[in-house]
């Protein structure tokens, strides 16, 4: 008897979804079978050539691998650190509200703009970091001109930027936990570590998983920090798929090939994240029963 009303409500969202995501996606799929680029615009048909070329594209797969490492590493660090400070901000220290605000700040900043700042910090000759290091007696590091340190630099930036996100979600979760199990643990005389391992951590499991999944999804798209701070450099050392595809398709204007790379990127992202999601789901099921 509600007649058409449910549909009416869903309509705007559905229209938006189809127009903004489905159609572009379908278009992209079609484009990958053409050779649209600077000199030749329009949709012709060249079969699977783009796909073949992609298979040979070591720079692309290199960026994929790098993304893999980068995202897992940063998310793991963010989780560990985030949980630690969440625990402190929950009830471990004095001046909690102050620290909560303080520790939220990085997330509230504009990633790309902060990356510019970071660039000035990491720059070898006049950067702040090397200055600090030499004052402490350590050797200056070629942060942005060597591939190893460059990746570390990116990791540092990502951790700085997004740990607060983990922190926020985990803190909200901690604040919503029921008090009773903790009272029981206290009565049983459990130590702080035991309480954490047996009570806090397990109860936070669903929230932890949610937070990690979201961060993984976001980390799979890393672009801002890379593009702004290193432009993928030195060379291609810090290039992520997003950065590479951006350059190829929108700067070199190889629309068709770029679309192929992009589509593959999407497929891989979906596959990987779905698998991880399922693994998590199985991990969080109670054993026995």
């Amino acid at each position, binding site marked *: 008897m509600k007649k058409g009303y449910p549909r009416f*409500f869903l309509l*705007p969202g559905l229209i938006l*979804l189809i127009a903004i995501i489905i159609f572009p996606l379908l*278009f992209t799929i079609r484009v990958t079978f053409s050779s649209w680029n600077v000199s030749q615009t329009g949709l012709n048909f060249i079969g699977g050539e783009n796909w073949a070329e992609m298979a040979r594209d070591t720079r692309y797969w290199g960026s994929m691998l790098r993304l893999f490492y980068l995202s897992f590493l940063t998310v793991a660090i963010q989780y560990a650190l985030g949980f630690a400070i969440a625990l402190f901000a929950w009830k471990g220290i004095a001046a909690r509200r102050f620290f909560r605000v303080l*520790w939220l700040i990085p997330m509230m900043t*504009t990633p790309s703009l902060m990356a510019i700042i970071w660039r000035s910090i990491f720059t070898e000759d006049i950067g702040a970091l090397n200055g600090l290091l030499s004052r402490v007696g350590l050797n200056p590091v070629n942060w942005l001109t060597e591939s190893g340190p460059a990746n570390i630099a990116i990791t540092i930036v990502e951790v*700085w930027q997004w740990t607060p996100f983990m922190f*926020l979600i985990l803190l909200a979760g901690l604040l919503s936990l029921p008090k009773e199990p903790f009272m029981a643990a206290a009565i049983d005389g459990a130590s702080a570590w035991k309480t954490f391992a047996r009570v806090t951590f397990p109860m936070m499991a669903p929230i932890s998983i949610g937070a990690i999944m979201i961060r993984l999804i976001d980390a799979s798209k890393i672009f801002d920090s890379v593009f702004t701070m290193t432009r993928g450099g030195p060379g291609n050392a810090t290039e992520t798929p997003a950065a590479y595809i951006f350059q190829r398709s929108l700067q070199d204007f190889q629309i068709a090939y770029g679309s192929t790379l992009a589509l593959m990127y999407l497929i891989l992202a979906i596959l990987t994240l779905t698998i991880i999601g399922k693994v998590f789901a199985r991990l969080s099921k109670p054993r026995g029963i």
Partner: protein
Amino acid sequence: MYKVLKATFITIWSLFVLFPIMWAITTSFKPESAVVNGATFIPFLEFQPSLIGWKAILPGAYGLSRFTYGWKNYSNADIIFFFVSQRIMPPVVLAIPFFLLLKELKLLDTHLGLILVLTSGLMPIVVWLMVDFFNALPREIDEMAMLEGCNPIQAFFRTILPLSKPGLTVAGMFCVIFGWNDVFFALTLTATKVLTLPVAVIALNGTVTPYWILAASTVFSIIPLVGLAFVIERFLSRGNLGGAVR
């Protein structure tokens, strides 16, 4: 011993958090930095895209909360998942077709174009937040409104919506942050007429500009969002975010 470790850790982390920002602030006060660049770029640009996208998604979220869609084999949870999973979509995948599309429609480098595109990124967040939020509001209120003569649309606008202010605020905040910070779409789809803050600053970055000007503009653009940090903390302490995060 543990206390010492804890204090050290907290201090180090807090310093880490503050370091870049302090660096930026102090750098911006170096000589030749009297100019605060921020004034050139209209903040207005930042808010627009976010707010419109937010409004379009709302009704969808409400419908998902209240009704059971028995559409073939898909349940509510599936539809919600469909929307929320869009988060996985890397912007770059959409940027290419959007670029071409907006070019055809002559919407490149316009407000409208950017707004339309940004809403795609906003959908997952708004749906996720608002469905949870609407679920927490008692159904009896809409029922009462319907019994008293409102059809579902009127019931929504007159009763539920006014009550949703906290949820709307949080969702709105996320939308604003998203629009404000976005680099990808702005970079791709705008050039000279319509510039968002990050893009403009990055452009400066390319040429050889003294760091201090960069720092100044960065600091200026960061301030509004840092203010948001305070707002979020208050929400947190009052437990309002608890329902949104799960």
